[in-house]
């Protein structure tokens, strides 16, 4: 930019005489900055709607993630030693009715790479088929395999009409 400015002042000495070399370079620079800014605004005005359009589902998921409580109607009838898969906000979760009549609800998303895990009552464990991660079905603790963190537990309230699951 400096080069072009200098060559221009060299060809038009009249302008240099009138405005001085400094002033001319300044006007030119100001013009380029203004043009560049206008261009960026224009590109932004085009890109913004496209971005928002494509991001719509993730925005909807985000508002779904704000859910703090889910009521599972008639879930109190779940037989002992079985599992009910449900959605807590946007992601899968599981409600387990253990054989000792205790209830546990936890996220069903493996903390390793995000596969959905499964409850295996005969093995008394929660297992992830993707990379063999194993969790404790009572506490959600990661027992063996690659998972770095435990599965998160939800708070539970069992009553006559269903099961209420909420964020701890």
């Amino acid at each position: 930019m400096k080069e072009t400015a200098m060559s221009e002042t060299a060809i038009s000495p009249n302008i240099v005489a009138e405005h001085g070399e400094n002033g001319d370079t300044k006007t030119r620079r100001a013009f380029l900055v203004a043009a560049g800014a206008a261009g960026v605004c224009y590109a932004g005005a085009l890109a913004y709607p496209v971005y928002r359009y494509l991001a719509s589902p993730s925005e909807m998921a985000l508002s779904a993630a704000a859910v703090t409580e889910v009521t599972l109607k008639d879930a109190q009838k779940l037989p002992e030693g079985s599992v009910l898969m449900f959605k807590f906000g946007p992601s899968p979760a599981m409600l387990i009715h253990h054989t000792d009549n205790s209830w546990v609800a936890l996220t069903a998303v493996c903390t390793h790479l995000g596969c959905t895990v499964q409850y295996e009552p005969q093995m008394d464990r929660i297992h992830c088929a993707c990379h063999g991660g194993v969790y404790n079905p009572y506490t959600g603790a990661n027992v063996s395999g690659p998972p770095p963190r435990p599965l998160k537990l939800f708070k539970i309230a069992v009553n006559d009409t269903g099961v209420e699951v909420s964020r701890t």
Partner: protein
Amino acid sequence: MTTKSIASNVYDWMDERLGLSELAAFARKKTVPVHAQTFWYYWGGITLFLFTLQCFTGVLLLVYYRPGVDAYESVRQITFVMHFGWLIRSAHAWAANLMIFAILVHMFSVFFMKAYRKPREFGWLSGMALLGLAACFGFSGYLLPMDELSYFATKVGLQIPAAIPGVGPAVANLLRGGPDVSEFTVQRFFALHVVVLPALFIPLLAFHLWLVQRHGNAVPESEEAKPLAERKTMPFMPNFLRKDIAMWIISLNVLALLASVFPWALGKQYDALAPAPMGIHPEWYFMSPFEMLKLLGFVFSGKLAETGEIAGILLFTLGIVLWILIPFYDKTKESGQRAQLAHYFGLLAVFALLATTVIGYWTIR
């Protein structure tokens, strides 16, 4: 190493393998004639720009559109649920109309400048094929929202192939995927609109552009009469390209204005039992052929009506065939009286198109 020397090293590396400097030399050599009619040279470029916009907005719509039974619901979601979905859809619909308009301007300017003459016959032929494909794009795309208007427009439009003696009904059934417009129709129109037509259009467009590179711009007869030394030109790079880009930005602004101030409507979901809505009429670029068929239907009334319809289609097809074959009638600048006749034929075509379109809009009930 400075940035400059890195850049020149990268350029040299690429150049050795891709021959960039040959391309650059080619681009420097290319010039565009400058004369009173230069304005018309921009319309091919405008069409090209609008086509790229169609690809871009089309892919964006494809992100949420679902053909088949769900078609209307997915367009409703795009229009009312997704952020700015209404704008993307509106831009796609408006750019389609602007593109057809730009093609027509481009075609008539080529016609009246006689740019179809030797050696540019293939440019004319490929251009006509591109126009045909653009009309198919328009017709197939119109059905995809599956609202009332799409439903009836497709129903009526497919009566034209159905009127072809003999094979007509079979052809129409094949296009429709059954005896009536249904979710099968929208599914196959979708396949046409996003796969088959682009697969035909893009290579043909490349061929068309390659021919323009090869033969350069044609000049009108008044320019051709001048000696070479007196004709003015401008270099394509960067002078003409700069003006081209200015035209594209103007087109984009016009599109943005139309798409946002007049958002494209979505009608009620189609209902095979509901009567056609009042005031229904073809898109403006299909108005003229429909009106011509209707007028010929009046001429041959009563029992002759069916004959009239077939005669109308034949007459219209004959007109299009003559139009396509014009480079083989008015071959060179020495073609004398044929040049005059071709010119009158062009004027007649413009007059017929405008007149029938006006009558068409005038008589909407």
